[in-house]
């Protein structure tokens, strides 16, 4: 229940935050919404000697359109994501996902940046970002760089983020108008991590799949981009036989942990079921 001791820092600029993190190295951690890190600190699974609170950095907040992308500040909370009219209109899968993360209190403080940068296989947003082909804007003491979400996740709690780097924004290409989307999440109860979840974004042309992208949550050490499954669906009408083949391809890339949510085999099968249901729902939402 009681965390270990640490020194607390609250910079007001990204530059200062990065400077502090570089200074502390392994002895420092960034604090975003805190709802992943602080529970770990309370169980003493994480004992950083320094916390760098990003809450005071104005430039990390906000949602704005920039060309054919929407740029979401890393410190944007789940609550703000849900409330954003821009996102509801342009990238509605985000809201649907956000509403299935944790509970109202956690959503008031939990941030998009925290959810995507942690490398926790249980977090929901990484698979959605992988599905949407988002890019993570990252700043370190060597300057800024951009990392595609699809290249960001390397293992459980292991990402492409270098020590001292801070995720500052998520850049998401806006899907085509009239696209179909769904985030289908099986969970033991509301607020739980996914037993398995599937993110689907697709577009139809004349009733046939013109584009499709699939992300899978919590059925591997990282979020999974089910590329082969999506390719199988291209040009199809999402008929049962083709969907079945796509599901098999998606199941084949899963390697879930066996835990209280179920044995690995079950969770793989559930990834398949979630994908099937997400495809159906995404199809029903397509326009034009």
């Amino acid at each position: 229940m009681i965390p270990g001791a640490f020194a607390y820092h609250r910079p007001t600029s990204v530059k200062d935050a990065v400077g502090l993190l570089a200074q502390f190295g392994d002895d420092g951690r960034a604090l975003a919404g805190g709802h992943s890190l602080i529970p770990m600190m309370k169980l003493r699974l994480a004992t950083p000697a320094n916390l760098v609170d990003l809450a005071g950095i104005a430039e990390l907040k906000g949602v704005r359109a920039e060309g054919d992308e929407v740029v979401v500040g890393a410190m944007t909370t789940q609550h703000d994501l849900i409330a954003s009219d821009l996102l509801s209109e342009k990238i509605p899968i985000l809201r649907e996902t956000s509403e299935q993360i944790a509970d109202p209190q956690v959503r008031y403080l939990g941030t998009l940046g925290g959810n995507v940068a942690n490398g926790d296989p249980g977090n929901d947003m990484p698979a959605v970002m992988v599905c949407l082909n988002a890019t993570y804007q990252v700043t370190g003491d060597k300057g800024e760089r951009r990392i595609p979400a699809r290249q960001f996740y390397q293992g459980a709690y292991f990402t492409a983020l270098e020590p001292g780097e801070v995720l500052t924004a998520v850049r998401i290409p806006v899907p085509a108008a009239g696209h179909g989307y769904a985030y289908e999440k099986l969970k033991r109860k509301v607020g739980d991590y996914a037993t398995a979840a599937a993110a689907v974004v697709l577009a139809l042309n004349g009733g046939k799949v013109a584009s499709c992208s699939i992300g899978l949550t919590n059925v591997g050490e990282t979020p999974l981009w089910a590329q082969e499954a999506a390719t199988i669906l291209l040009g199809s009408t999402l008929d049962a036989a083709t969907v079945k083949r796509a599901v098999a391809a998606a199941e084949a890339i899963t390697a879930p942990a066996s835990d209280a949510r179920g044995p690995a085999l079950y969770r793989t099968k559930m990834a398949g079921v979630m994908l099937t249901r997400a495809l159906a729902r995404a199809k029903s939402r397509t326009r034009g």
Partner: protein
Amino acid sequence: MNAQTPTSAERAEKLEGMGCRRKRVEDIRFVQGKGNYVDDLKLPGMLYGDFNRSPHAHARIKKIDTTKAAAVPGVVAVITAETLKTVNLAWMPTLAGDTQMVLADGKVLFQNQEVAFVIAEDRYVAADAADLVEVEYEPLPVNVDPLKAMTADAPMIREDLKDKTDGAHGKRKHYNHIFSWQSGDKAATDAAFDKAEVKIKEMIVYPRVHPCPLETCQCVASFDKIKGELTLWGTFQAPHVIRTVGSLISKIPEHKIHVIAPDIGGGFGNKVGAYPGYICSIVASIVTGRPVKWTEDRIENLSTTAFARDFYMETEIAATRDGKVTGLRCYTIADHGAFDACANATKWPAGLFSIISGSYDFPAAHVLVDGVYTNKAPGGVAYRCSFRVTEAAYAIERAMDIMAQKLGMDPAEFRMKNLIRREQFPYTSAFGWQYDSGDYHTAMNKALESVDYKKLREEQKAKREAFRRGETRDLMGIGVAFFTEIVGAGPSRACDILGIAMFDSAEIRIHPTGSGICRLGTKSQGQGHETTYAQIIATELGLPADNIMVEEGNTDTAPYGLGTYGSRSTPVSGAATAMACRKIKAKAQMIAAYMLEVHDDDLEWDVDRFRVKGNPERFKTMTELAWAAYHEVPPGMEPGLEAINYYDPPNFTYPFGAYICVVDVDVDTGQTKVRRFYALDDCGTRINPMIIEGQIHGGLTEAFGIAMGQEIHYDEQGNVTTASFMDYFLPTAVETPHWETDWTTTPSPHHPIGAKGVGESPNVGGVPCFSNAVNDAFAFLGSTHIQMPHDHWRTWTAAEKLGLHG
């Protein structure tokens, strides 16, 4: 009488006595955040205690080094078993006749067992220091499987009992064996099975779960060196028992121990017994001369305090071909963990498990229970269970469904054929229990009609056909449960806790101005006693409930009682309240007669007054009589208006109910949606219907959690894998179904107000109802028994085994 004089009915309504939906008195402070829970308490100079706990499930302790811990600034002391041995408190007696380590003595027997107790100036320092206690362990082989506990090569858990073949409850047949207990007529039962036309046998497991009240266990111990007195605040469902046990083991005279149970944030049986945290806090306070507070974390609570169930029940029913039951047999292995710390009445090591014949007229029955030790947390009886009644009800209700299936009969029809009939009451079961009253067929019919059972079965038939045609992937299940439970422990001839009979008490004092105070030996943890006992008094004495203060939990002022658990408050202290009221009323009647210058027998009672028979204009209200009691009593009579009653119940009470549940199982994910849950309860006289409904809602929600996902799970190395809210399934408002409540009223003939108690009924009947519903969904495919919890993956696995995933 004129139009403006209130009628009897109007006067009765104003009293807010029994039967009305009186708003709760305790709410006024709770909704303002002014409850008084143990952790709210701050005393000058108070210290905080925290445990260092074992990561191993079974290991020898080679060495404990407390130097680093003791050196942390702010740490006042570090206690180990060696410290406790100097005051003979390294081990303490349990309520089940066993002994239990307070701090690990030479070895640890379950994961998270207490090894050292750190006492510091604040809780943050205590936590830091607890982490710095260094312990050298030599791991030992682990056994967490009760079915393997009595094999020849099973690891020996209790070396301290190595050569003891005599246990607290008879002979021990193996070093991991605790007791054998049996009840019923074995010969007659075996004979019934030998000639049975139809038999079923099933291993029915009630997994280990935990009551998990929202407030964990905690205490503040304050030993006054100068007076030699100990004051102990704590989360105690049975404060007097804690005082007596505390005195026996600490040797502090009982009159110098003050135990106070303030507001408690839920108990459900988790807060009945004494825990190492309490003992260590007391010792720490004695050693340091300062008050010591101990509060446990949730993981500590779930992994080390009184768990519930863990019963492996091989259950058999014998019946005739046309569906009359002829015999019931059950052999159970009971996993008690490392110490038998069950809070049972002394003579009943398996509690009241022999209620297992339930609501059915079994001519012959026999049960045998073997308790065993394993490397798990100690305990066994808890969680709204009324001493193993939940286990018994689960076994019989599942077994009845399995038999109905074998006979090709509808589960409700099969039950109707075997329910004890109204004319048979008072009914003596094959185990010797005398059920006080019941009208089961009326209740069952009411339930079946209310849900339109026939139509549900027709719908199910149509849906099954649709499933077979591939038109739906949902399976509809209908669960039926008709439970009888045994509560209100209990008659002194049968029930004692460590030698103290299980009576209970009420002491009522009426003040001159007509209000009063009632103190009882029970202790509410949310059941609304401050509201409901006052309602009994309002009806009995004709004083407004609002004028009666109800107090529990302070052992100096409350009369001795055995506390609140097992739905015993209404049956026992509720009876004591009524009896004490009647003594007061009798005295008041004499005073009234004296004042009205008539004979006692010339008076009749009318709601709130004694009036002269045939001359109702002449009366004295109880309020007037209260005033009179202090100055105008008949010559020779003592002034004052008070009474105390210690009630030794002549029998248990037997609430019952008919529950029906409709579920839709998504075969492809294993998710079960509860479409409808109808609960009809008969608890005899209903004191406050609003509170009864609340108890049913709450108990059904706990039953839902148990049936659909709760378990305290151990892996093979003895690691507890479900010890936090990440994994221990507590439903939120989203998962929790809507509850429909209904009732019949069959008063208990032996209870002064006919009330039976109701708090645990929903957990007793709810779990089998949910489990029967899920099982029923698959029954038409040949499935006989799917083990609970019915969480998604297990339900899916059952569907997979039936070949439903193509």
